[in-house]
């Protein structure tokens, strides 16, 4: 299946996350080198409460160290103390920019553990909403990333268009951000009257908007200078560091869980996996732009082929999966989002582990910014697309 370009065995010496020597020595008299600055946890460009300690030589980055956990809420511990159904809303609070995707992963993992399957209509609704959520997440990413690099305007364009997606969510389930759209075994709500029309309207509305974003940035000289060859990471490094999602694909590895290990009913849809070649910030931008277009394709096919039928599978009132364990992962907008659930046969998970893409991807920051400039750190943090709610859980 995998037609990766970088077909190398992962080299151990590829990258060792060496630690920063942050101890402040007595400065020599005329020493102008090595400035240690603290970026965050309150900083406009760290997308939340990420704290990055930068060791600088002038403007050149000698090394970074991420301090995370400011938003730690103990989601996994909460999961062990709630029933399966009660925990469902909590997953929305991890990657709050892609709540629907989180919910899909969790519901499918529990369904797999119980060996039930959502009915076809529910699968279609799930795919439509999840792909819309992917577009929304990428829009949010694009706006904030462009803002980090200094372009203000894309932010407002993307928020204007993201609003249309959120409106569909709101009409469907009443919530815009933390949607709690799915239930274990299917969907809670039947689509509202006019759902298909809304989605189709959005398709025709949004296709030209992607071009609009691209008109602003893709051939913008300054944008090119700021993103090309910035934060380069090779495919082999990505794999060694466990980096997934658009970052991995931009490095030329054609790997998408929707194709590699199809879940929901993604195998029924025809779409492509966009990949980049250089693994730089610009390629990641292009990959995400192309992914928005591919998501539109999927939504179009799904909304045209949505069958009639029930929306909930046969799920007992009290969810009690048999003893056992399961790992299930989906392709969230940010990468591989996995749930590892151990059941002891009771109504609560014995152990619930979330494999968050942002957390793992963030590890690559150090490799990507060494030797770059301060401004690149901001660009690279943006391009990894982290959500601190998910990093810290």
């Amino acid at each position, binding site marked *: 299946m995998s037609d990766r370009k970088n077909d190398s065995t992962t080299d151990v010496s590829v990258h060792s996350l060496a630690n920063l020597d942050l101890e402040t020595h007595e400065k020599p008299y005329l020493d102008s080198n090595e*400035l240690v*600055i*603290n970026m965050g946890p309150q*900083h*406009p*460009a760290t997308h939340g409460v990420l704290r990055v300690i930068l060791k600088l030589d002038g*403007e050149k980055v000698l090394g970074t160290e991420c301090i995370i956990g400011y938003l730690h809420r103990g989601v996994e511990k909460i999961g062990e103390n709630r029933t399966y159904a009660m925990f469902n809303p909590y997953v929305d609070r991890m990657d709050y920019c892609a709540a629907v995707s989180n919910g899909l992963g969790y519901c499918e993992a529990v369904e797999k553990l119980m060996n039930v399957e959502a009915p076809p209509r529910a699968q279609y609704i799930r795919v439509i909403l999840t792909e819309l959520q992917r577009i929304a997440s990428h829009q949010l990413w694009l706006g904030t990333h*462009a*803002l*980090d*690099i*200094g*372009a*203000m*305007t894309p*932010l*407002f*364009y993307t928020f*204007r268009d993201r609003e249309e997606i959120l409106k569909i969510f709101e009409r469907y389930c009443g919530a815009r951000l933390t949607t709690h759209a799915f239930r274990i075994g299917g969907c809670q709500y039947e689509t509202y009257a006019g759902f298909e029309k809304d989605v189709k309207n959005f398709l025709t509305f949004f296709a030209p908007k992607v071009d609009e974003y691209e008109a*602003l*940035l893709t051939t*913008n000289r*300054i*944008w090119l*200078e*700021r993103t090309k060859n910035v934060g380069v990471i090779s495919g082999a490094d990505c794999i060694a560091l466990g980096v997934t999602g658009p970052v991995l694909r931009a490095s030329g590895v054609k790997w998408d869980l929707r194709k590699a290990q199809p879940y929901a009913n993604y195998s029924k849809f025809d779409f492509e996996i966009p990949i980049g070649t250089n693994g730089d910030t610009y390629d990641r931008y292009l990959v995400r732009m192309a992914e928005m277009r591919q998501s539109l394709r999927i939504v179009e096919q799904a909304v045209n082929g949505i069958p009639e039928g029930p929306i909930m599978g046969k799920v007992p009132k009290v969810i009690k999966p048999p003893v056992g364990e399961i790992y299930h992962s989906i392709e969230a907008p940010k990468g591989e989002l996995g749930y590892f659930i151990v059941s002891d046969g009771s109504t609560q998970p014995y152990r619930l582990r979330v494999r968050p893409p942002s957390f793992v991807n963030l590890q690559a920051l150090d490799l990507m910014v060494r030797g770059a*400039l*301060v*401004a*690149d*750190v*901001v660009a690279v943090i943006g391009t990894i697309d982290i959500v601190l709610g998910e990093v810290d859980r």
Partner: protein
Amino acid sequence: MPDFITSYLGSKVTPGEAGNQFWALVYVFIIFAGVALTVMWLLNWIERKALAHFQVRLGPMRVGPHGLLQPFADALKLILKEDIIPTEADQFVFWVAPLIGLLASFTVYTVIPFGPSQAVSDMNIGILFMLGVSSLGVLGIVVAGWASNSHYPLIGALRSSAQMVSYEVAMGLAVVSAILMTSMNASGTGTLSMLGIVRAQQQQGIWFIFKFFPLGLIAFAIFAIAMVAETNRTPFDLAEAESELTAGYHTEYSGLRWSLFMLAEYAAMIAVSSIAVALWLGGWMHPFPNLLSSPTWEFIFSLFPGLTFVGVAAIAFIGAARMPSQSFFRIQRIGLAVFAALLGFIALVLLVIAVAGRSGDTSLAARFREGIDYVYWFLLKVAVFIYLFIWYRATWPRYRFDQLMRIGWKVMLPISLGVLMLTAIVGVIVS
């Protein structure tokens, strides 16, 4: 009326040249008050509105009709805010830094030639003085960054000083090539005086942007880029790059002291735009002064100021008419209508002056008409630049520091040097 007032009204030179201290002071007052008000109110409002409309937003809408009074509300807020000086900061330097920048950018206005006699003084080293004083503005930024005793402001200050020093070189060379063009006359002597430079364009019958095409254009382009860097605006706003350095050199500033930095930045924007207008775009001259100089054309051009105000008043009236009809908007609607009426009145006065001043060249009305004409065309050209500044900000991302330096030293400096040499060579050949 006292002698010193009436004696000057017919004068054709600047009050500084005529040694008329009273009128010099009046001019200083008009210019400073005008600039402060324009900068604080109009420029602030226009930047926010224009930027908002670039970004599919409305911008300020609540305070006053279409947010017209928002800048005043903000100014009031900033003045009333607590003046925080960090304990670790260098108190005195922290206190004095914003004043340096403000002083530098306002002092420049003494030599801006709004018209042949509409300037405070015609200094014979005008352009040199302007460049020198405006380069002092960076001291305010550097010192502010240092005095804050904090890492981000320090990096902002370092960036700013490196940027200013680099771009001043290219800017200076571009300016020199314009000065060189002033010497393309019979006597072969150029001038550094701002008025002299505009007069040279008048005598040679060409704006310097078109002189020795494309040399003038290239020099102008170099200056137009360098002046964005000089004023720390997007895409060269690295000194205050908010996504990297939170707010750069003014991170630790708040309230009035912070607003002084903003005031200085806006004032500097107008100042550098004025240099560009005076040096390349014919200063106070209306378009095609050599072709369209018949009395009829003069009359048509003199109607422009009045017509502009008519246009703005009309827009304001339409805005008032289109206000929603809820009672909540009644005050706003009335306010906007009054504003429109005021603009209409100004337009009427201007048109009356234009018509009355048409006949002779000696009457007071004619003097007024001329003065208004000069100032109008000068400010119109400056306004184009201000709009460009806002447009840049809405469109472009920010350059990275090394790219900025590379452009400054490896692209703009060689080009401006080459343009300077070519201008000199072409000048020698032509004369």
